[in-house]
C-alpha cells in the first residue's frame, strides 16, 4: 500500500498530543520549574585521560548562592552507572577517562551562581596519554583503561569454512568501510527536575527511554529502595536512543537529597555534545566471495567498534552488528569477529538502528561490488542470494518466518524510481551535474534479543472518571506511542478518543512495560491489549447487562458507553455510570505481564522478529562542489499492519533524514580525545533544504498466516538502509566508490580546469 494521507483515509488522524505541542502549552520535563528550586551544574574533566589527585571544593562552597557542592565522597551507594555494566563513575574519584567525565556538581540559587561556583572548584590532575584509536587500544602495550583490559566485548560467529571457501569463488570483494561518530542531536538537551517529597521520597522528572531502569540505577547510586523513587520520564523532546542511559539524573538526585530542595538541571548544547552518547564509529573489514553464477559462497567480517570510555550498551550494540553483518542473504560459509573497544573518546552507545546501520552500509556495499564484478544487475544479484521465509536467522537461530525482505525487494523493483533508473544519468542539466540511482536492502531485528530480560506488560481499566484507562511505562519522545495506543484502543472498544485516558512514563502510575527502545513498544502494546481488552470488555458488558437487564451478547462497547450490539441508537449506559455503579475498582482493572517474543535458541542477542526494508534513491552530484543532492527516495517497508499511518510515515521519513545525515554530512569528529565540534553550528544535521523532492513509502502489511505478533515497530527500520543506497547512487553517477562515511565532498570534486590544462599540455 502506498502510504500517504489519501490512502489512509479516516485512519489518518490527528495525534492526541497535537494541540498542546503546536500551541506550546506542553511542558517538557526541562520546562518545569517550582518555587524555591535550585539549579544544578556539573564540572567535567578537562582531560580525556588523567589521574585525579585532589578535588577541593571549599571555595565553591562559600560562593554566593551555593547550597551544595558534591564530589565522589557524596555518593552514598554505588558510584557508577551503566545499563549493562555500571562502570561509568557518577563522580570520578581517582581517574577520568573522557572529557565528559564528571568531577563535581553544584546546586545554587541561580544558574549563574552555579556556573560561577564550578570555576572555584580546584582539582589537580596528572594527565595520562590518551588512547584514541581502537586498534591501538587493542595492543598489548596500550594503557589499560579498565581492570578487564581495553576490549569491552568480543563476538564471533562461524558457519562452514569461509577461509577455505574463498578458493572456490569466482569473484571476491575485499574492502574496509568506516562509519562516523553520529550525534543524536535531539532538539531538547538532557535535563529535568528533581524533587525531594515531604514523605521522604524522591520524584525525578527527567527524560529516559526506560523509567524503571532509571529507578533501579538511581536506587543503587542513592542507596535507597526503588519504591522510594518515582520516575516521570515523558514527554521528551527527541531521544533516538541517546537518552536511554542515565545522564543528568544522578547529579540532580544527589543534589536534591543533599539540599532538601528541588533541583533543576538542563544541559547546554555544548555540555550535551561533550558528555552525551554518540553512535559507535566502526571499522568494517569485509571479504565476500561468489561463484561464477553469482551465488554467495563466503563472507568474512571483522568489526572494530570504538565504544569510548565506558560500557553502557557497547556490548549489545556489537552483538547486533554481528547478527546483521551478513544481511538478509544465504551464505554457506561465514566468519565474523567483532571487537568493541574502550578508548578515551566520547562514550558510544545506543542509537536508532543499534549497530545495524554501520554493518548494513558495509554488507550492501559488498553486494554492489560483487554484482558488478560478476556482471549481474545489483538488484538481481541480491534476489539470487536472498533468504527464504523459513530460513533460520543470521546467527543460525530460529526466527519467526518472514517473507518481508523479498516483498520489500519487489517493492523497489516495481517502483518508478528503480524502473526508470536507466534514464537518470541523461537527465542532468549541466555537464558537472551527474545523476545516478542506487538501492539497498536490509532486515532488522526488534526487541532486545535472546538472553536479555525484555519484559512487556501493561494495565487496562475503567477508572473512577469513567474513562478506559491504559497504563504503560513507555515514553513519548515523538515516535507517536500515544497515537498508536489511541488507535489500538479505539479499535478494540469502538469508542472515541474522549473515552480514553492514556497514562505513560510514570513508575508510580504505570506497570512495567519494558524499554521504549528496539522498535518494541508497538508490539508490546499490541500483545498486552490483545490479552487485556477482551477481559475488560467482557467485564464491562457483564456489568452493563446487570444494570440494563439485557444479555451481555446483545451489547457492545462504543462511543461514550455500552450500546446495543445491533441497531445502534446511542449508548444505553455511559462508561461513567458503569464506573459509578461498580463496587470495587480492582474488579475493573486487568494487568498483563509477559516477555517480548524471543528465539528459543540460546544465541545471545539473537532476534526472533524481524522487519525488512528496501530503499531506492536517486542522487545528483555536483562535481564542482562535491555536494550530493537527493532527488527522490522510495522505501518499501515490511513491518506488518499499519496501526497509525501518520506515525508510520513519519518514522520512515524522519529515520531516512537521519540516515541521510549519516551518509552525507554528520561526524562528531574527535582529535586526541577532544571533540572538534561543540554545537549545531559545527555539527550540521539536514535542513529542510536537504530533503529529496519526492519521497514515497510502500507499507507491506502482509504477515505469514497465523502470525500472532501483529504490527511491528518501525522506529529504526527507516534509518538503516539509505546510506548504502546513496553510496551506490553516487557510484552510478560519478564512477567513484565510497567506503567511508560521511561521503567527503573532496572525494567527488573533479578538477575540470586541471583536466583541461593537462589535456592541453598533452600529459
Amino acid at each position: 500500500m502506498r502510504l500517504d494521507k489519501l490512502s489512509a483515509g479516516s485512519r489518518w488522524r490527528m495525534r492526541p498530543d497535537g494541540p498542546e505541542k503546536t500551541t506550546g502549552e506542553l511542558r517538557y520535563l526541562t520546562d518545569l520549574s517550582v518555587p524555591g528550586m535550585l539549579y544544578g551544574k556539573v564540572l567535567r574533566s578537562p582531560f580525556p585521560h588523567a589521574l585525579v589527585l585532589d578535588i577541593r571544593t571549599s571555595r565553591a562552597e562559600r560562593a554566593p548562592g551555593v547550597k551544595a557542592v558534591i564530589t565522589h565522597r557524596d555518593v552514598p551507594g554505588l558510584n557508577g552507572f551503566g545499563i549493562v555494566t555500571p562502570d561509568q563513575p557518577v563522580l570520578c574519584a581517582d581517574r577520568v577517562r573522557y572529557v565528559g567525565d564528571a568531577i563535581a556538581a553544584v546546586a545554587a540559587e541561580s544558574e549563574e551562581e552555579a556556573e560561577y561556583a564550578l570555576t572555584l572548584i580546584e582539582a589537580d590532575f596528572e594527565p595520562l596519554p590518551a588512547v584514541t584509536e581502537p586498534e591501538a587500544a587493542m595492543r598489548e602495550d596500550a594503557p589499560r583503561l579498565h581492570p578487564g583490559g581495553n576490549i569491552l566485548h568480543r563476538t564471533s560467529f562461524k558457519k562452514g569454512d569461509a577461509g577455505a571457501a574463498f578458493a572456490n569463488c569466482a569473484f571476491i570483494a575485499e574492502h574496509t568501510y568506516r562509519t562516523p561518530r553520529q550525534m543524536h542531536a535531539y532538539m531538547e538537551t538532557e535535563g529535568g527536575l528533581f524533587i525531594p517529597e515531604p514523605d521522604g521520597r524522591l520524584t525525578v522528572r527527567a527524560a529516559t527511554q526506560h523509567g524503571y531502569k532509571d529507578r533501579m540505577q538511581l536506587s543503587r547510586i542513592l542507596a535507597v529502595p526503588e519504591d522510594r523513587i518515582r520516575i516521570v520520564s515523558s514527554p521528551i523532546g527527541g531521544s533516538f536512543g541517546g537518552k536511554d542511559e542515565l545522564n543528568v539524573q544522578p547529579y540532580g538526585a544527589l543534589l536534591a537529597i543533599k539540599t532538601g530542595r528541588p533541583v533543576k538541571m538542563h544541559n547546554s548544547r555544548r555540555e550535551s555534545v561533550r558528555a552525551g552518547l554518540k553512535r559507535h564509529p566502526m571499522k568494517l573489514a569485509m571479504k565476500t566471495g561468489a561463484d561464477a553464477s553469482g551465488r554467495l559462497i563466503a563472507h568474512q567480517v571483522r568489526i572494530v567498534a570504538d565504544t569510548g570510555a565506558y560500557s553502557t550498551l557497547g556490548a549489545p550494540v556489537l552483538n547486533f552488528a554481528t547478527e546483521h553483518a551478513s544481511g538478509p542473504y544465504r551464505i554457506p560459509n561465514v566468519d565474523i569477529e567483532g571487537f568493541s573497544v574502550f578508548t578515551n573518546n566520547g562514550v558510544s552507545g545506543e542509537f536508532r538502528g543499534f549497530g545495524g546501520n554501520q554493518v548494513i552500509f558495509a554488507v550492501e556495499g559488498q553486494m554492489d561490488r560483487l554484482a558488478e564484478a560478476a556482471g549481474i544487475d545489483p538488484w538481481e544479484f541480491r534476489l539470487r542470494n536472498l533468504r527464504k521465509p523459513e530460513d533460520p536467522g543470521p546467527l543460525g537461530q530460529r526466527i519467526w518466518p518472514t517473507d518481508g525482505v523479498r516483498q520489500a525487494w519487489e517493492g523497489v523493483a516495481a517502483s518508478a524510481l528503480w524502473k526508470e533508473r536507466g534514464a537518470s544519468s541523461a537527465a542532468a542539466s549541466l555537464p558537472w551535474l551527474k545523476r545516478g540511482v542506487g538501492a539497498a536492502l536490509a532486515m532488522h531485528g526488534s526487541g532486545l534479543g535472546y538472553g536479555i530480560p525484555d519484559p512487556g506488560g501493561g494495565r487496562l481499566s475503567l477508572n473512577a472518571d469513567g474513562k478506559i484507562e491504559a497504563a504503560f511505562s513507555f515514553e513519548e519522545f515523538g515516535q507517536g506511542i500515544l497515537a498508536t495506543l489511541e488507535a489500538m484502543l479505539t479499535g478494540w472498544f469502538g469508542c472515541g478518543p474522549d473515552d480514553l485516558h492514556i497514562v505513560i512514563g510514570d513508575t508510580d502510575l504505570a506497570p512495567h512495560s519494558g524499554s521504549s527502545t528496539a522498535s518494541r513498544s508497538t508490539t508490546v502494546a499490541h500483545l498486552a491489549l490483545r490479552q487485556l481488552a477482551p477481559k475488560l470488555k467482557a467485564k464491562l458488558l457483564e456489568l452493563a447487562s446487570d444494570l440494563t437487564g439485557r444479555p451481555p451478547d446483545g451489547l457492545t462497547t462504543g462511543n461514550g458507553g455500552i450500546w446495543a450490539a445491533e441497531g445502534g441508537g446511542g449508548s444505553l449506559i455511559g462508561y461513567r455510570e458503569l464506573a459509578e455503579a461498580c463496587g470495587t475498582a480492582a474488579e475493573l482493572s486487568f494487568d498483563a505481564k509477559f516477555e517480548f517474543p524471543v528465539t528459543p535458541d540460546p544465541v545471545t542477542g539473537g532476534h526472533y522478529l524481524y522487519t525488512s526494508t528496501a530503499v531506492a534513491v536517486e542522487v545528483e552530484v555536483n562535481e564542482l562542489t562535491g555536494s550530493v543532492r537527493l532527488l527522490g527516495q522510495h522505501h518499501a517497508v515490511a513491518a506488518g499492519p499499519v496501526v497509525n499511518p501518520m506515525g508510520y510515515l513519519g518514522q520512515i521519513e524522519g529515520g531516512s533524514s537521519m540516515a541521510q545525515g549519516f551518509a552525507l554530512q554528520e561526524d562528531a569528529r574527535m582529535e586526541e580525545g577532544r571533540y572538534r565540534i561543540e554545537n549545531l553550528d559545527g555539527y550540521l544535521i539536514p535542513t529542510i533544504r536537504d530533503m529529496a523532492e519526492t519521497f514515497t513509502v510502500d507499507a507491506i502489511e502482509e504477515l505469514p498466516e497465523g502470525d500472532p505478533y501483529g504490527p511491528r515497530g518501525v522506529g529504526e527500520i527507516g534509518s538503516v538502509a539509505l546510506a548504502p543506497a546513496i553510496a551506490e547512487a553516487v557510484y552510478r553517477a560519478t564512477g567513484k566508490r565510497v567506503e567511508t562515511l560521511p561521503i567527503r565532498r573532496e572525494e567527488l570534486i573533479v578538477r575540470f580546469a586541471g583536466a583541461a590544462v593537462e589535456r592541453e599540455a598533452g600529459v
Partner: protein
Amino acid sequence: MSAQRWSAVVNGQKEELDVDPAARLLDLLRKELDLTGVKMSCEVGRCGACIVLMNGKPVNACLVMAYQCEGAAITTIEGLAGEELHPIQRAFCEEGGFQCGYCTPGMILSVKALLDRTPKPTTEQMMEGLAGNLCRCTGYAGIMRAIKAAAGSDNRGNAMQG
C-alpha cells in the same frame, strides 16, 4: 550591570520587568514570563527552536538582548491561537508536521512570518523561510505538507513536487 526597566508588548499584553540590559530575550520569556513554549536548544542562533516574532519578524530569542527589544511587540507560540488553533497549527496537526514537538513552536512562527510576508510561497520560498529551523524527527516532509496545506496550495498525497 545594574537592572533596568524593560517593557515590551508580549502576546498583546504589556509586560514590564527589571532586567539586566544584556539579558537574553530567551531567558526573559522562559524564566521571567514563564512562556516555556519558547524552547532552548543550541543558544547560538542555529536551530530556531527559540524563534519568536519581534515586530512581526522572526528572531532567535537566544540572540536578542533585552535592550534590543525594548518596546517591541513580541509574539511567542502562546500568542498564536485564539479560541481555536491557528490554521498553521491545525495544518501541523493534520499533516504530521511534528513528532517530538520541541522544534514546533519555532517552526510554526517561522511559517507564520513566511505566510504573512508571502501568502502563496513557492517551494523555494518555503525552503528559504524555514532554513533556519532544525527538526530532527520528521525529516521535514510532514512540515512541508503542513506549510503547503496552510498556504492553501495543492497538497494531495505525500509527494512533494517542486
